[in-house]
């Protein structure tokens, strides 16, 4: 579903991402992990169509910047930013209009209820806490019923109930055949859900494996992470 081929991104003289390639299939949850400055954000922004890059990124077989690809792609950014004067419901209505959704209201109601936001429908963006903004951001991404969805540090600011709900949503998305990519620093938060691990360091993918393959080798994600980012032999 998501194919990243030879992605390279240079800012002036700094090579932020170097020849990165990976795939996330339908019904698969991929995690993109790496230390600060590894190139995760640049990769995420490139996939989201916000940056120019060398290489090829396709979503559902279409170039990621095309209208057709965007129609099936949901994105939850690291820092939620809502329209200050638009209510929670207005945000969902905007998404429905922008993506040309029909009969979306019931889905929106259900999503808001799952995140305990149903009583805050009329609150405007500037009156919401960071956690609530994050919940709205997640609801907006899920409203379109995406075939590929990308979460950038989705747990930050969420309360325990919302985290639990989001983990369930990850599984539901996977079971419905959606490709999910999660970028995070908190390995524990995604320990139960991931299928494919992508570890980035210094702008490159230094590790790409599935849970099954790692289980066969009796490798733990945490050990591999430290070994790949701090040198072989470094485990915690």
């Amino acid at each position: 579903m998501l194919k990243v081929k030879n992605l390279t991104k240079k800012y002036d003289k700094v090579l932020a991402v170097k020849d990165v390639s990976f795939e996330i299939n339908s019904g698969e949850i991929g995690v993109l992990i790496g230390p600060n400055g590894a190139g995760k954000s640049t990769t995420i922004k490139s996939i989201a169509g916000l940056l120019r890059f060398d290489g090829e990124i396709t979503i559902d077989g279409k170039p990621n910047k095309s209208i057709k690809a965007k129609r099936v792609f949901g994105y939850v950014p690291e820092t939620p930013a809502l329209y200050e004067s638009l209510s929670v419901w207005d945000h969902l209505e905007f998404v429905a209009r922008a993506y040309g959704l029909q009969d979306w209201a019931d889905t929106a109601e259900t999503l808001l209820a799952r995140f305990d936001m149903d009583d805050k429908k009329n609150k405007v963006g500037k009156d919401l806490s960071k956690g609530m903004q994050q919940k709205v951001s997640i609801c907006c991404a899920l409203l379109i019923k995406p075939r590929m969805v990308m979460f950038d540090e989705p747990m930050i600011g969420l309360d325990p109930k919302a985290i639990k709900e989001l983990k369930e949503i990850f599984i539901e998305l996977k079971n419905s055949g959606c490709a999910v990519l999660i970028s995070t620093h908190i390995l524990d938060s995604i320990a139960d859900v991931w299928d494919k691990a992508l570890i980035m360091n210094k702008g490159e993918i230094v590790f790409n494996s599935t849970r099954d393959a790692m289980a066969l080798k009796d490798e733990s994600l945490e050990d591999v992470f430290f070994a790949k980012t701090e040198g072989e032999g470094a485990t915690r």
Partner: protein
Amino acid sequence: MSAMFFIVRKTLKNLIKGVFKKPILFIGYLFITLFVVTMLIASFAMPSGLIRRGSSDLYTGIVTVVFIFMYYTTLKLGIEKGSTYFRMADVNMAFTAPIKPNHILLYGFFKQLGGTLLFLFIALCQIPNLKNNFDIKPYGTWMILLATIFYALSYPLISMILYSWATKKTGRKKILKRAIDGLALLIAGFFLLSLSRTRNIVGTMGYVFNNPIARYFPVIGWTSSIANASIKGFTTEFWTGLFGMVALILGAVVGLYRANLDYYEDVLEGTEYLEAAVKARREGNKMTFGLKVRNSVKQKLSGTGASALFFKHLLELRKTAYVLFFDRSSVSVMLAAIMFRLVMPKEEIQGFSLSMVLFFALYMLLLLQMQGRLSTEMEKHYIFLIPASPHEKLFFATLAEHIKNLFDGAVLFTLSGILFKAPAIIVLSCIITYTLSGAVYTYSDILARRLFGRIHSKGLLIFIKVIVNLLIIVPGGVAAGIVMMITESEFYMICALGGWSFVLGVTLFMFSAGILNNLETVS
């Protein structure tokens, strides 16, 4: 496209609904509306050139210098950070949606039309002053506003195009910045060279900024030629400027709209910068936002208890200043002194010239100091946790501000004193009054926070504080006027104003210190 205009429609609707829901907001906006209407009526209705009729060369010079400065600063920042019509909400929600980038750009341009209102308001505030000093034509106000609109619409477009070109190849950014700096240096060099020959500033302004190259120079020359129609009438320069700017803006918009656009990256950095600037403004540290911090300044932190705040502020001041306390605001006050010397007619130079500079400086300080260092301090928890009395904490947390005002006052009035050949005692009294009035503004700002709490609209809060400050300073102004009539002495007049500021400063200090008792009082 309908999705993007849904945002505009809903934003406007919710903004209006929000104003009616909160009485203090409603009253505040009512005040602003009344103020704008008054300014509008004053700008259009007041006669021009009755008090004095400055030369058209001086007018052209001032207008051109203002536009050069505005284009120079905004384009340089645009090349560095990219320019943007957008906020992060647009980036996260609209840029990633299946909407054509051209439609999003059009939406951004439409939003910018709203942004021009701020520039129009700033321009509107200058018009009565211009009408007092120059012979502005009856339709002149329209021309000044028209030039302002063209500026506000054109600079983001030019910035976006330049940034887009510059970021495609390494080294282009540097080339562009050097070209802009070079052009600015060329103008400054040509001006100084001409000045050394003529030794007449107004004449030099006419020679440098009224010559055909300057008048027909793309963008800057065009914009200022439109504004110049307010004094020169509808000349060929005006029509060239008008058609030039219309063609430029339309051409850029149509070109960008039709092009196969991939501009999201170009506006991303600018949007992130804008978002940070908005956050800084809300937190009250607008004055320090974007300043370069020099890590080379070596100064150990000293002081214990509340005084540690003072030494921290001193270090912060030094790190953002060019030398010692000489920073951007010091340059502004220096330029203000020189401009005053240029604009003030000869007959007034003999009279109460330094007090005129003082009044103007106090007005500027009122606008600038509304977002001082203490506002930033109160957004963080440290000041509330320091084990010291609120009075002690307030004193030390504002002491650096007073020292900075003393420093700027010394720069401004020493320079003005030399330019106007004023006696040393007048210079000294101006410096002290300037510092004391700065203290009034600082403490009234804190008292306003204590009384109003945190109003979501920082602009509205600033507006309320400006009005309150003007009102409380009035008795001092009246006292100064009476003293002047009785004694006919500029020195005693300034002392009366200084005395009132001292009494007011101490009173406000006593009433406002309680704000530091707990964090709740500021939120």
